[in-house]
């Protein structure tokens, strides 16, 4: 029997009761009730932001975004939504969003898969008035508490999804919030590598996540530790994420991601931090 996992843990709120942060970011799930954590199956319920992106029909503005290594497109729709559409690497964009949302990290802008102008790809909600971190003088010392929390969550997400290309060019900052974008270099098949296997270092821990904003041997916030612990103790959650990742990326990348997630969750649960020693983990 399918249990609609997220209906239990996501209670619709009226827009007026959401903080500005919640309204702009992926909807933050309510606390889980204990009944849900042991169920083997769960089904995914899109957030309101995802529904808005999926249902946006009439295009009011279309602009190809020049530059880079492919041609994303900026769309504005008559329902007020705007987003960036990618017809290349879109599976990884959606997968990164799902990992971010289902883990409760909520650092990737809402991203759906859909057709636009008869082409299939990912449509990611546009964050207006955001700056790339590369355009700012943001440094570890100058971060607000909220920004530091977001960067920590992004770093953890990058370790889970094996993102080997996080830098200031794919971090957005808007006010007190930091967002993670561009996950085209994530979800490789391998797990961790020890020193002997470091030849293929694209997949080593050293290269996952931002070089500048990393949090080895630093206390991770309690809410984040609880999210990982709760997720890893829920067969329904794990099966759901793994199934969705397999559909997008195939079995091996999904399995590697789940194995990293398990390892990170165990370390956080035990020590409250990730030691740099985890870089030598092998599985």
């Amino acid at each position, binding site marked *: 029997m399918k249990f609609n996992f997220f209906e239990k843990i996501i209670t619709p709120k009226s827009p007026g009761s959401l903080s500005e942060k919640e309204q702009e970011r992926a909807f933050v799930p309510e606390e889980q009730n204990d009944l849900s954590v042991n169920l083997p199956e769960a089904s995914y319920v899109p957030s309101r932001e995802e529904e808005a992106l999926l249902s946006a029909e009439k295009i009011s*503005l*279309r*602009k190809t*975004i*020049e*530059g*880079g*290594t*492919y041609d*994303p497109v*900026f*769309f*504005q729709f008559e329902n007020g939504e*705007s987003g*960036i559409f*990618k017809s290349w690497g879109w599976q990884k964009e959606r997968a990164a969003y799902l990992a971010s949302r289902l883990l409760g990290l909520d650092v990737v802008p809402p991203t759906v898969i859909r057709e636009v102008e008869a082409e299939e790809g990912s449509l990611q909600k*546009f964050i*207006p*008035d*955001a700056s*790339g971190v*590369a*355009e*700012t*003088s943001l440094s570890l010392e100058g971060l607000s508490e909220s920004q530091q929390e977001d960067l920590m969550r992004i770093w953890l997400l990058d370790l889970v999804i094996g993102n080997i*290309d996080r*830098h*200031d*060019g*794919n971090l*957005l900052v808007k006010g007190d919030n930091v967002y993670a*974008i*561009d996950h*085209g270099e994530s979800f490789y098949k391998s797990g961790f590598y020890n020193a002997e296997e470091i030849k293929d*270092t*694209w997949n080593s821990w050293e*290269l996952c996540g931002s070089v*500048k904003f990393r949090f080895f041997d630093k206390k991770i916030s309690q809410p984040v530790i609880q999210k990982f612990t709760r997720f890893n103790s829920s067969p329904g959650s794990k099966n759901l994420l793994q199934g969705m990742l397999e559909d997008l990326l195939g079995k091996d990348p999904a399995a590697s991601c789940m194995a990293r997630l398990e390892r990170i969750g165990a370390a956080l649960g035990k020590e409250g931090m990730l030691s740099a020693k985890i870089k030598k983990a092998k599985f």
Partner: protein
Amino acid sequence: MPYVEIYKLKNDGSQEVAATCRLSGQSVVCEGEGALISRLSGEGIKDYEHSEEHKTLFLSDGIVFLKNLKHAFRSGYLMASDIKND
């Protein structure tokens, strides 16, 4: 002379030039938004075309730096052009 433009995406989907990086002799000179230029100058970018070497490229790497800018800036919000010529 070869040069690359870095574009910033605006709320209406249009792009404006945030920085221009130009080959000057063997090195690169960048002009534009202060913080972006400082980051490029001080921190460099990854060498995507020789990824197995895990190098960081700086302005002094000249044309190789210019070639890799489009890999570093491809998120949509900040995008680097292909190499152009005056």
